[in-house]
């Protein structure tokens, strides 16, 4: 189910990937995978994910077993192996029948007498021993709980750090995009205000389906850099698209300069730093979607071949 974990992988993710292997192991391998040694990774994290997987079982609607099932299981176990008869937890073993003879327990007084230690000293020592053992057990459980808490907080911190990194990446991408957009605006502003820039108005031909459309093509002095602004176009529909053409050379050969869509009331702005040699005219047509590589077929909605300078 999972990829092999590589060097430098997040310990939390490594534990998770290890836990998920249990889901893909088959048959007895699954329980072996569950019990496998995993000392090289964070055992606490692995254990948490394994328990999360186990808890998924509680999502199923519980089903009450038929009365015979327990009997069948116990019969199967008895057939599997002869059960060793042992007393229940509530039953104390009968010492009279014990195969290992245990010497009779002597009374505390007798014991203290025989060892030469007063009874009260033995009792105090016993109490101290019990108290010390209890303290050790309590301390151990507290330490274990603290470790678990620490592991959980470390995992949460890693999640936060990851989120922060993602936010930083998004912010950087946004800043870069804004810089690009600003650069583009500055470039266009420079173009439209440069005294050497030529202006080519695009107007709808007499039979244009969109007579309200208007456009202006700004062409830099190098006749390469251009910027087009179009207003009044209508959304072309799902199956059609607008396409800009430059007519170049004496024969006015149409060259595809790109396609675009437009939404209701949208002003279209296009630009590029290259323009075909000897461009004589520019026009926009409405073309069927998927007709790239072919010449203009659709109706011309805007056309311009008159060039004027700003001055």
């Amino acid at each position, binding site marked *: 189910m999972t990829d092999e974990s590589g060097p430098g992988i997040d310990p939390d993710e490594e534990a998770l990937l290890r836990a*998920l292997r249990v889901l893909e192991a088959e048959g007895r391998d699954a329980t*072996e995978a569950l019990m496998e040694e995993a000392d090289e990774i964070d055992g606490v994290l692995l254990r948490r994910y394994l328990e999360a997987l186990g808890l998924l079982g509680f999502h199923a609607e*519980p089903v009450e*077993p038929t009365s015979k099932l327990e009997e069948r299981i116990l019969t199967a176990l008895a057939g599997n192996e002869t059960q060793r008869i042992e007393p229940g937890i509530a039953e104390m073993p009968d010492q009279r029948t014990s195969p290992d003879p245990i010497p009779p327990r002597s009374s505390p007084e007798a014991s203290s007498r025989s060892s030469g230690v007063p009874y009260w000293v033995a009792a105090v020592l016993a109490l101290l021993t019990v108290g010390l053992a209890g303290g050790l057990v309590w301390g151990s459980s507290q330490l274990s709980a603290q470790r678990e808490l620490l592991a959980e907080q470390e995992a949460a911190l890693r999640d936060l750090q990851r989120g922060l990194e993602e936010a930083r990446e998004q912010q950087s991408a946004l800043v870069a995009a804004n810089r690009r957009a600003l650069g583009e605006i500055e470039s266009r502003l420079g173009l439209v205000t440069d005294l050497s820039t030529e202006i080519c108005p695009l107007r709808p031909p007499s039979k244009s389906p969109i007579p309200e459309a208007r456009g202006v093509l700004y062409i830099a002095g190098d006749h390469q850099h251009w910027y087009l602004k179009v207003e009044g176009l209508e959304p072309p529909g799902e199956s059609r698209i607008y396409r800009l053409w430059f007519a170049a050379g004496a024969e006015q050969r149409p060259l595809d300069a790109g396609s675009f869509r437009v939404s209701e009331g949208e002003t279209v702005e296009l630009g590029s730093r290259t323009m075909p040699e000897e461009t004589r005219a520019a026009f926009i047509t409405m073309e069927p979607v998927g007709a790239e590589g072919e010449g203009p077929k659709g109706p011309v909605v805007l056309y311009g071949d008159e060039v004027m300078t700003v001055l």
Partner: protein
Amino acid sequence: MTSADTDPLASPSPLAGLEDAELVQRMTARRQDAVAELYRRYASLLLGVARKILGTTRDAEEVVQETFVQAWEQADQYDRRRASPSTWLVMIARSRAIDLLRSREVRDRTAAEAGKETRDLHTSPEGARAVWYEERRERVRSALNELPTEQKEVLELAFYQGMTQREIARETDTPLGTVKTRTLLAMKKLRRELRQEIRELL
């Protein structure tokens, strides 16, 4: 796991006060009464898991029987540091059920038989099931419902259908990388949402 303290079904057993891990320990000493106690605590859970995978109670009971036999045989390999007994048993039952699902190709007849069986489905009478069980089940259900649908779907297909991520990608017509990401995100969220329950199991 101290569920026995509140499980009304376990009260008649002299082992009712023992923790799950202690019961598994007794299984290594070949104590059938320990199996019986674990059965009282988890049979309906394991049956529910197996039935959800296989669709029929008959097959599910077979799986639960095999689960307890396997647990009996492998009790000495159980390591309480690795997983709680309930997780150990759930994963055995799930694995056996998926094996059966594949080997008998019951997938096809599941839908038909599940429909027929609805009337015979045995569910616990009201109040008979332990309170802890219902509470845990509700929290798990709530945590799963908190997940986005597509994340919940990958977990359910992996856990209850035994599908690999590649199979899930094919089944859901989703890129493999997306399936992997969804699984990881889902598990991380689940672990966060169920941290209290997980702590109880540690």
